[in-house]
């Protein structure tokens, strides 16, 4: 069954169509990338799917259930997780606590148990901590566990955010530019991580500017320009598509003109 399907999604801000009539599907274990020039509406699309914005048109289906415009925490409970282009880290907590926060749905219990430090509360916290340490090791941050999250480098924070998203054991994972600001080595690590997660059956939706990475790991690519889908298909097809090439070169010329 299709894990995530997006049907005719659209939104307008002050009369301007930021995203218009975009449809695609993501199957379990598949990596689907959304690409397009700056301002094409990729992050807006992400924000609609993940419940940050309520779409003006269309539907989002999670395993067949209509979840359009549902609050992010409800989507999380249904197995959707995401990372952010401009990082949403709990800066007031340690690296380890950030990762543990990802286990919220698994570790939460009754407030009374937490207030009185009952064994059930301690057990849940312990399990979450063990899981979090494991995940930190997986993204190479185990030695930074007790540091303040705010003290990490940008690339490390990116990986921490992925670890936190993975802690939820999502079935659908939305990654918004996971490799932005990372060096070549870090990008490759993130590459492997994403491929590994997909191999475990998670449906992954990716926005990424690093074209080499996108071409390498995507099963399927959706191309947006001015908020509309102009092409989709396997990486090789998309990279040969004249409309895609025109969109990219066109905006680069426009960008030069702006500069």
């Amino acid at each position, binding site marked *: 069954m299709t894990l995530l399907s997006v049907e005719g999604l659209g939104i307008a801000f002050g009369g301007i169509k930021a995203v218009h009539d975009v449809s695609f599907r993501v199957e379990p274990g598949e990596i689907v990338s959304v690409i397009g020039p700056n301002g094409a509406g990729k992050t807006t699309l992400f924000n609609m799917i*993940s419940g940050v914005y309520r779409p003006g048109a269309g539907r989002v289906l999670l395993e067949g259930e209509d979840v359009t415009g549902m609050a992010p925490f409800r989507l999380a409970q249904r197995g959707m997780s995401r990372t952010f282009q401009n990082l949403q880290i709990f800066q007031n907590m340690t690296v380890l*606590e950030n990762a543990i926060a990802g286990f919220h749905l698994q570790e939460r219990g009754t407030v009374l148990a937490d207030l009185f430090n009952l064994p059930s509360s301690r057990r849940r916290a312990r399990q979450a901590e063990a899981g979090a340490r494991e995940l930190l090791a997986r993204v190479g941050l185990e030695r930074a566990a007790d540091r303040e999250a705010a003290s990490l480098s940008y690339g490390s924070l990116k990986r921490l955010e992925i670890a936190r998203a993975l802690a939820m054991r999502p079935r659908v994972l939305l990654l918004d530019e996971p490799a932005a600001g990372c060096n070549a080595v870090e990008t490759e690590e993130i590459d492997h991580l994403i491929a590994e997660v997909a191999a475990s059956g998670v449906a992954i939706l990716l926005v990424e500017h690093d074209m080499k990475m996108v071409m390498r790991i995507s099963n399927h690519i959706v191309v947006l320009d001015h908020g509309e889908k102009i092409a989709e298909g396997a990486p090789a097809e998309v990279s040969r598509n004249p409309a895609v090439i025109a969109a990219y070169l066109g905006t680069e010329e426009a960008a030069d003109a702006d500069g």
Partner: protein
Amino acid sequence: MPKLTVKSATLLVLAVLIAVTPFFFPSGYYYRVGALIFVNGLAVTGIVILTGYAGQISLGHAGFAGIGGYACALAPEYLGLHPALAMVLGAAVSAVLAYLVGRPILRLKGYYLAVATLGFGILVSMVLNNERDLTGGPDGIAVPELGLRGVLKDWGLNLSNGQFWYFFCGIVLLLGAWIALNLYQSPTGRALRALHGSEVASGTVGIDVARVKLQAFVISAVYASVAGSLVALQNKFITPDVAGFMHSIEMVTMAVLGGAGSVLGAVFGAGILTLLPQALTVLAEYEQLVLGLVMMLVMIFLREGLLPSILRRLRGRGE
């Protein structure tokens, strides 16, 4: 293991302070001041949970203190409850009211809670001032004796009134601190701190932000209510001032001054703001002026609050 030490260290420091300071009291009067600090510390510990952990601001918590205080005056008279049970009833009423007030507001982002709680506090204060037949109006109302001191006396522990309230409030403060520290490291506490850090990210990890905020609000209301009850029982008298706007501001100021993120900081802030006015009485009409100046300086130069800033300096020197 370091988490465990923060908790036990805080409790140890508090316990030692409570036990040892009386040896330095020049007179019995200081037991009263000490008890007042502990009661304020308890209310401020509730603010730490709401503001320090969850990042929400309430400007009406004195309203809950008022409910706790007047419960101890009214429930024994009208319901025939023992004052101790009246305290529990007050806490329950405060919790329910906090739930009802907080539920619609905490769904909204921003400073709506501050404004709505401000209104709530004023409302409680107005009711207490105006319902003369029930509350005695601005003149206040008598509160019955808790009676625990007499029980202790029967057991052979003979404490003066001041001593009894000093140690009783100290023990309640320790209990309150223990609960707040439990919460800090617990899954719920982590969710509270997470939403303080980023509401957007909290949502994506499945935290029901509105619900968790409401939990923090209700818990902190219970702290304020119990503190109000203790004040009433200790003084055997209560006036609507306990629910006044200034008292709400005082609670927030104590928390922010001491360091809203830490329980020990809160008690520290409560201590300073309880003692400072007493020390500044020599300045007569300039008291408020100096008090305001001290607070401004702390906010400008020690933004995390006194205690965290001092600890950071000490640690920085050690390295």
